[in-house]
C-alpha cells in the first residue's frame, strides 16, 4: 500500500511513502534468498575433486573464507538486521512510514554490492587464485591474474556504504502515519 501523504508535522514527504513493515518484508525475503545462496555456495566443500580444503589453507584461497563470512555476516545477518530495524521502527519510535524510493534503492544496492563483492572475492581471488597457486603458479603471476578484481570490489564497497547510509537516512526521516 503506497501512501502519498503529508507527514504529521505538516511537511511534504521527500518521496512516496510506504509502511515500514512492508520494507521489512522485502528485507526478510532477500534475507531468505541469501540463506539459500549461502547453502548453495557451501555445497562445493562436499566435492572432493575441487580440493577446497587444500586451496583454502593457503593464500589466496583464504579469500574464500573471507568472502564466505562477509556474505554470512553482511548478506544474511545484515539483511535480517535491516528487516528487524524496519519492523521495530513503528513499535519503538511510532514511525510508521518510510520512503519507498530510499528503501528500494537501499535494498537493491545492498544486494548487488554484497553478492558482487563476495563473488569477486570468493570466486576470482579465492577459488581461481587458490587453484592457480595450488597448481604451482608463482605468487606474482597469481597476483597479476586476480588483481583486476580489486578496483571493482572497491567500487562495490562504496555502493555498500552508500546503501547503508541510505538506510540510515530512511530510518531517521521516517514519519508518523496513522
Amino acid at each position, binding site marked *: 500500500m503506497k501512501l502519498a501523504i503529508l*507527514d504529521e*508535522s*505538516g*511537511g*511534504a514527504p521527500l518521496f512516496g511513502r510506504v509502511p515500514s513493515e512492508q520494507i521489512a518484508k522485502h528485507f526478510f525475503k532477500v534475507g531468505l534468498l541469501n540463506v539459500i545462496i549461502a547453502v548453495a555456495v557451501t555445497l562445493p566443500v562436499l566435492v572432493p575433486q575441487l580440493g577446497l580444503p587444500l586451496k583454502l589453507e593457503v*593464500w*589466496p584461497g583464504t*579469500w574464500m573464507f573471507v568472502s564466505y563470512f562477509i556474505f554470512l555476516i553482511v548478506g544474511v545477518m545484515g539483511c535480517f538486521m535491516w528487516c528487524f530495524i524496519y519492523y521495530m521502527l513503528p513499535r519503538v519510535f511510532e514511525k510508521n512510514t518510510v520512503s519507498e524510493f530510499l528503501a528500494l534503492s537501499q535494498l537493491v544496492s545492498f544486494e548487488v554490492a554484497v553478492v558482487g563483492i563476495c563473488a569477486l*572475492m570468493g570466486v576470482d*581471488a579465492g577459488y581461481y*587464485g587458490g587453484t592457480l*597457486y595450488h*597448481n*604451482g*603458479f*608463482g*605468487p*606474482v*603471476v597469481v*597476483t*597479476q*591474474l*586476480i*588483481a583486476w*578484481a*580489486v*578496483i571493482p*570490489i*572497491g*567500487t562495490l*564497497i*562504496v555502493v555498500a*556504504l*552508500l546503501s547503508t*547510509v541510505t538506510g*540510515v*537516512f530512511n530510518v*531517521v*526521516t521516517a514519519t508518523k502515519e496513522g
Partner: protein
Amino acid sequence: MAAIFVAGGAVSSGIGVITTSSGANSSTSSGVSFPSLNGPPPSGFGQPVLQSHLQKLNSRDVVGATNDFTSNGVMIWTGTTQGLGGVYSGQGNIRVTLQTAIGSASSLSYTIVSFNASGSTSNPSVAGASAVLSFNGKSAILGTFNGTIIAKYEYVNQAGTWLIQQELSDYTTFNVQYSQGSTTFPQWQITGPPLPQRYSESPFKNWVYFYGGAAAAVAVAGYLSSLPIVLYFKKKRGSNGATRRRSQNG
C-alpha cells in the same frame, strides 16, 4: 579499496626443489620428468634455436615466445625468481606467465653466456640444451633488474620445427630495484610505506590511486554528513507547518 590480493609473507618460488639425475629419466618434485640426453645434437639443432627464442623474449613477443613451446610444454622456473617461480604446463599457462614476467618490461635483454647441445642416440627428433643465461632490463613491476639463469631445455622436432617440450630455469641470481611490489597498484608494497614515485601503466589505476579512492571516501563521508542537515531542514519545515496551521486555526 580494502581488498589487497597480495601474499602476506615473503615471496617464495612457489615450488619445491627440482632435481635432475644422470639416469635415463629423472623426476622433478612436480612429477615432471627431465630426460638426460648424452648423444650428439641432431642435425639442425644448435644455439641459433635457443637464440631465436630469446630474441622473441627480448622483443617482448609473448605470443611468439609461447609458440616456441609445444602445446603441452612445461616451463619450470625455480631459484630466486622474485615470486615468478612455478610449474607452468601448457601454452596457456606459459603465455600468462610470460605476459606477467616480460609483458611489463620496457627493456629486456637475455644473453647466452654458455651453451651446450645434446641429443638422443635413438631418437633424432629429440634434443637437449644446457645454457647459462644472463639477463637485464627494466619494468614497471620490478624496476631495473638483472640476473643469471642456469637453464636446461628439452626440445622436440615437430614438422621440422624445434619446439620446447620442457624448460627448467634455475634463477641463481635475480636482482631487482623493487621487490614484492607486484600488486594492483605498483605504489603498494607489502612492507614499508607506499612508493608514490612508482606509476602504473594504466592511467585509470593511477587516477584511482591518487584521486578516485579518496574521492569515493569523501563522497560517502559527505553523504553521511548531510544527514544532520536534512534532519535540520525537515524539523524546520515541520515547525513552520505547525505554526502555519496554528495561525490558520486562529
